[in-house]
């Protein structure tokens, strides 16, 4: 029996020296020292021995047991210190995942809203269905202006219409905040157009307004330049104003940005002019300020419009405007 104990001790210590994982170590522990382990069994069978024999074998067994236990503990510590096993593990495997996405316009809109909020602008939305007064009259579009014609506007059977411009919100915003104020109105706008790769009847604009004492054209240029630099993430951006006619501003401008592709020399992107038309803007027309209840002798301000849909398409390189409203996540499910 002593021999057997010695054999178990030898074999176990031998095995222990080769063990490479905690799991395997535990296996050995159970095999030898567990309830039905080889060493335990031997100890159990000692009950049949004589007292003398018990004494002798017991001594040997206790020493062996202690040795094995110590060896196991030592090995355990060694392995734990190693920080795991050497077993093959495929760390390249990835669990199946689905990644949620935002609509491209949401991303661009949120970015721009945050830029404006950082500059102290209020964000407002307003309704998509508005009255003829809101969409046209309040922003100084004359009674017989072609823009009021049937062909550009979706008219509704209750006499109201789907707003053709976020400018429809100008006067409401003025009334809401009163002068001085700074606000933007992003939102969905509509034009009664045939839809194709570059035309949509539903798109997003952002209207911006700043009204205060002594706001000037020079301020407008500075502001728009800084804003576009931030929005387009472009340093040393050059902008220029040229006359543009919009009933709700006077003077009204088209703001161009120097073409970055050709540096202003002229290329296909800028139609050889060296400049890219970016946005309409201007000093808010006194009639509009008046409609908003603002004292035109004391206050002046500027307004501008940004095409959010166009900016989103530029930012992500989306070629077809139709995709924006397609609801197809193969196309739109890319903006994280």
């Amino acid at each position, binding site marked *: 029996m002593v021999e057997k104990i010695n054999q178990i001790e030898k074999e176990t210590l031998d095995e222990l020296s080769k063990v490479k994982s905690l799991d395997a170590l535990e296996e050995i522990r159970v095999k030898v020292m567990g309830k039905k382990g080889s060493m335990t069994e031997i100890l159990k069978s000692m009950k049949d021995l004589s007292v003398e024999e018990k004494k002798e074998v017991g001594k040997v067994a206790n020493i062996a047991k202690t040795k094995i236990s110590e060896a196991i503990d030592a090995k355990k510590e060694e392995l734990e210190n190693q920080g795991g096993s050497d077993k093959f593990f495929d760390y390249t495997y990835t669990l199946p995942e*689905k990644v*949620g996405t935002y609509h491209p316009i949401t991303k661009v809109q949120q970015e721009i*809203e945050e830029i404006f909020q950082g500059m102290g602008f209020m964000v407002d939305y307003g309704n998509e269905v508005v009255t003829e007064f809101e969409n046209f009259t309040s922003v100084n579009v004359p009674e017989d202006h072609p823009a009021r014609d049937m062909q550009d506007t979706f008219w509704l059977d209750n006499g109201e219409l789907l707003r053709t411009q976020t400018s429809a919100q100008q006067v409401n915003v003025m009334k809401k905040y009163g002068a001085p104020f700074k606000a933007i109105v992003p939102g969905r706008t509509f034009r009664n157009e045939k839809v194709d790769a570059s035309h949509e009847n539903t798109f997003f604009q952002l209207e911006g307004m700043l009204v205060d004492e002594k706001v*000037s054209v020079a301020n407008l240029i500075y502001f728009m330049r800084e804003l576009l630099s931030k929005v387009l993430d472009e340093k040393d951006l050059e902008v220029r104003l040229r*006359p543009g006619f919009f009933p709700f501003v006077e003077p009204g401008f088209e703001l161009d940005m120097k073409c970055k592709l050709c540096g202003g020399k002229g290329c296909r992107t800028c139609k050889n002019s060296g400049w890219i038309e970016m946005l309409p803007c201007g000093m808010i027309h006194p009639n509009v300020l008046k409609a908003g209840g603002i004292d035109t002798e004391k206050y002046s301000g500027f307004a501008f419009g940004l095409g959010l849909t166009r900016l989103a398409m530029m930012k992500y390189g989306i070629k077809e405007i139709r995709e924006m409203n397609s609801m197809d996540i193969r196309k739109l499910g890319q903006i994280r």
Partner: protein
Amino acid sequence: MFISLNWIKEFVDLDGIDIKEIEKRFTLATAEIEGIEEKGTNIKNVVAGKILSVEEKENLKTTRVVKVDVGDGKEHQTCCGAPNAEAGMIVPVAVEGGTIIGLDKVTARKTGGYDSNCILCSAKEIGISDDHSGLLVLPSDTKLGTDIHDIYPDMNDVIIEIDNKSLTNRPDLWGHYGIAREFAAIFKKELKPLEMAEIKEDKNLPNLDIKIENDKCNRYTGITVKNIKENKATDQMAIRLFYCGMRSISLLVDLTNYLMMEVGQPMHAFDKRTMDKVIVSSSKKDEKFVTLDDEERILPENTMMICNSKGPVAIAGIMGGANTEIKDDTDELLLESANFDAGTVRKSAVKLRLRTDASARYEKSLDAELTPIAIKRFIKLLKDRDNGVVIASNLTDVYKNKRPEISIDITKKYINDMAGIDYSDEFITECLERLEFKVTKKDDTFHVVVPSFRATKDISIKSDLVEEVSRIYGYDNIIPTPIELPILPVSLNPVKELNDKVKTILTERYDANEVHSYVWYDNDFCREIGINPESYLAIINSEDGYSARLRSTMYPTLLKCASINAKNYDEFMCYEIGSVYNLDKNKHSDEKLKLGLVLANRNKSNEELFYEVKNVVKNIIKRTRGIEISVKKTENLFEAADKSIACDVYANDVKIGTIFAVNDKVASKTSGKVKLCLAQIDMDKVVELAEAKITYKAPSIYQETSLDFNFLVNKETYLDDMIKYMNEFKSDLKYQIKLVDVYEGKGIDDDKKSMTYNVIIGRDDNTLTSEEIDGFYNGFLKQMNDKGYTLR
């Protein structure tokens, strides 16, 4: 609009100014130049030649062999297809190496065995007309060998294309003279006066019988001219018209067009034989009229018409009639130069679908002062061409609505404050005067009288003058200046806050995809899947035949979204925050912001999807408002809903939305085997829910006791009802109930289910005694048994 630089130079000297500079300054000061085209310089080595002989050859079917002499002593021959080629004729000849329209280089070659080393040209081939019917015949006294550019000095020109849209508010720029005035102001040059015929009142001549019955005619000026023999415009006029996009037709027609393009005043020439009098009136109902393009048109009622004693002869401001058209033998004409109301002309042109060069100008609000000027200029040009013409009536002028003169008082301070520039008094005065404003200064105030051609709608207020001064100064010369404003905290928009947060939760926690859609139903799609959703507002004039009904719910949009994406994906969640539209009691649009959500999965049951969506909604409301939602039976079931798997969602007893699984009938047509669950949440109501305050609660420091209850209940028991009943239990102890498991099936009667709850009980001030625990256990169980909830 096309502008000829030669024409402009008749009125303003632009020598020494580079065309690039013109382009830049005009674009910055006035209107966008879309293109610049050099004309004539592309025609090279084309000279006058005399046709010596024209021979037909048997093997040549469409051409004849023509010999020409171009005065260089060499023999030139070509195979020419022109039907009018005739010996003795002087024609343009493109000699070897020459360039004409459509051919970069003339080379010697053989046609049917005959030498061909030059090309005889039509007017089209040298670019001065689109006439390609035959060879251009040059005057018989043209010296052979003369370069074509010397014969037609006007063929060398620079044509500037101006963006029409940027001229909508500038009626004065719809003619060359107006553009020349602008150039003169921009480049500080003198504007030459328009040369006009002097027409004095003559007692021996009759006045025209002109009557204005329609008050939308502001002014009607007319004259008659007789003894017109010449029928062809000068080459110069014909070439200019062609370069500016018109075709030369006959002297009188060309002259009216020329005047329109020069002074911007549309004119009309009637054959005098058909015009006994002029009456400006209105069309009657269903009246028909043949315009001079020989189209019979049905006139909208009350269209402004020019009439003679018999009836209509022209649609005012749009197009003349066939009945009074100038004929080849017309030698006496009645010339109309009139001013009509802009809106009236525009509306008629839209209704008739007939937009002409004339109507395009009238609709910009032309200056009524132009009408006699145009006539005097017309007569001058006509007499230049045909000095035998005789004026046969007095210049008759009926001026019905004269606009009041506009004057504006403005201070330098106002201009400088708005521009952000320090203009001097002198600069302001000079700028305005160069643009033909009359300026007088008294103390600090400029008294500015607006010229009539700018006063029709363009300029009426102070800021208009700021624009005039600044654009001439050059916007590119204004130094960008930062705005100095006080720094104040900004209030955030709660709608934005909520929208952004909800989008973040859906996209980043639930990996949903945000979509955008149209705000109207897709009727075809609705029909296909067999739903007929309600709509309260309809588009009455959709251009593209879109569905004309605005959505009153997000569900059809969500179904469409599911149908598009189920083709490519077995599972997805899409959402949109968008508007739906109802009507209020005044029939005004009542627009509400909704979150629409669709969860789709091929491998899950409707019940599973419903519970998932419910959890999403629960999480959204909890995260954004700190409120636990509750649910109730749906009041108004959407037609696509599965009746049983549906509920309304409440927060603080306010209904904020609905969740339902889509019934099999609609789902199978929408997304095949992919199951769908929809939710619509009223963002307008959620935003108004007061956010629940977070109050910190310390956990009890005493040991709590956990009790498990496994009840056997009727299958049709709602969890909410049971929990609510449990929570009605009155006890001194604090307790918290949580559902652990629901089980139905093996070992349980078909009409029952087993529900296991865990109840944690405790006190804030002490550890529970076993009597307290037993007391709670027994009391709670008794209350449950009373309701028929028995332990399993």
